[in-house]
């Protein structure tokens, strides 16, 4: 199954990677996909980014490279914030789902409760940010350079998170936006190559 939009096709379950030349470009891509900007950065990737955003229909979540965490909340509150904010249910079901995801990723959610964000390592911040993005049940998950600035073992852990996401949600799309070529996401289709083929 795939989403056909204006003649373009964005397959369900597609995985893309996009090499950003600089941080401002990456920020612009994230802002566009999040719906804050009307237009993507004007280069060869722009048409495909438009298709991705249209195909996701506004249901886009971003796993930020620094977790995108708020300092005034603890790690656990950060993890459930967007899902909790958008849910409106009084029972706050995001808490239960978050516990399940943390457990599936091999982490004890109780350790995060009350833990200040400033005391988290880079990997832990990314983990909280990744769980936060997973909880949003988005059609497009954007991975913001999650492998960057990590050692080989930590990169393997991050790859494990992505595998878990794909196993749980095989039909959802993934886009990895990074500043460097990452071997861990080499199997993802290059967004620009995909565009050239089209």
């Amino acid at each position, binding site marked *: 199954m795939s989403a056909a939009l204006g003649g373009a096709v964005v397959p369900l379950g597609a995985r893309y990677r996009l090499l950003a030349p600089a941080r401002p470009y990456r920020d612009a891509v994230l802002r566009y996909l*999040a719906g804050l900007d009307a237009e993507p950065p004007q280069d060869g990737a722009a048409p495909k980014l438009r298709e991705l955003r249209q195909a996701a229909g506004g249901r886009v979540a971003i796993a930020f490279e620094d977790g995108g965490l708020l300092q005034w909340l603890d790690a656990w509150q950060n993890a459930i914030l967007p899902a909790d904010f958008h849910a409106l249910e009084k029972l706050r079901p995001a808490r239960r789902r978050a516990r399940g995801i943390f457990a599936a990723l091999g982490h004890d959610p109780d350790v995060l409760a009350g833990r200040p964000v400033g005391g988290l390592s880079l990997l832990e911040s990314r983990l909280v940010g990744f769980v936060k993005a997973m909880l949003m049940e988005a059609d497009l998950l954007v991975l913001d350079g999650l492998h960057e600035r990590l050692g080989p073992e930590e990169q393997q852990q991050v790859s494990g998170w992505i595998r878990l996401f794909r196993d749980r949600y095989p039909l959802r799309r993934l886009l990895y936006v990074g500043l460097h070529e990452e071997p861990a996401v080499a199997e993802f289709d290059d967004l620009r190559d995909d565009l050239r083929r089209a």
Partner: protein
Amino acid sequence: MSYLALARDVSLNLGALARPPVRDVLVRQIERTGAATLSAMVLRAAGIGTLIIAYTTYVLAADAALAVRILVWAVLREIGPLFAVVMLVLRSGSAVAAEFALMRERGELQRLAMMGIGVRDYVVVPTVVAMALSNVVVTFYFQFLAVGGGILLSALMMDVSLDELTEHFFALASLWDVVYTLVKSAGFGVLVGLVVSMHGLGLGARKPVALPEAVSRSVMQSLVAVMAFNAVFAYLVFGVLLFGIVRAP
């Protein structure tokens, strides 16, 4: 964005408080603003009450009835709400503005927006409501301490009986004073909340300023806004402005 536009947005989006994370922020801001101000209040409030009674009794040679009358007028209607809001601005408003400016500089506001969480709903609405509620509580607390402490200390230190002072107080104070205090202190709190949000978060039309300037502007403009509101409120309620220089027709 102007203050009026922000005030309108906040009033139209009070429904955001139904969201659990927004309520969490509300509780957090009440704890920070209310508790921080209350703890600094006790001695100052009792001292002001005592000073007013002592001054009117000794310097103006007034009797107990007049001393209590001046205490009621000054503390319940003017000094109480003003002193409370000044404490709120200096102790909590500056801290909140600094925290907001830091959030902006760390890029947290943009991240919130990227997660589909509006800054106005998640940050501004609970802050303004928290400031209003906290200031009402702090004002009543100040009035209680100033009047109660003032009457008690005056009875202990001066040649005036506690019964006499208490009797005069209850004869003079009315429900109107409570309503007046409630509306005025809530208005003060709303103003402070709007000003610190505007400058801390950089919501104004001008380019956002750095943290120190955001704090400085928040404090100064909060105080100016409070004084202006106080004057307008007095004119609307009593028909008097600028100590009687301007009177309602």
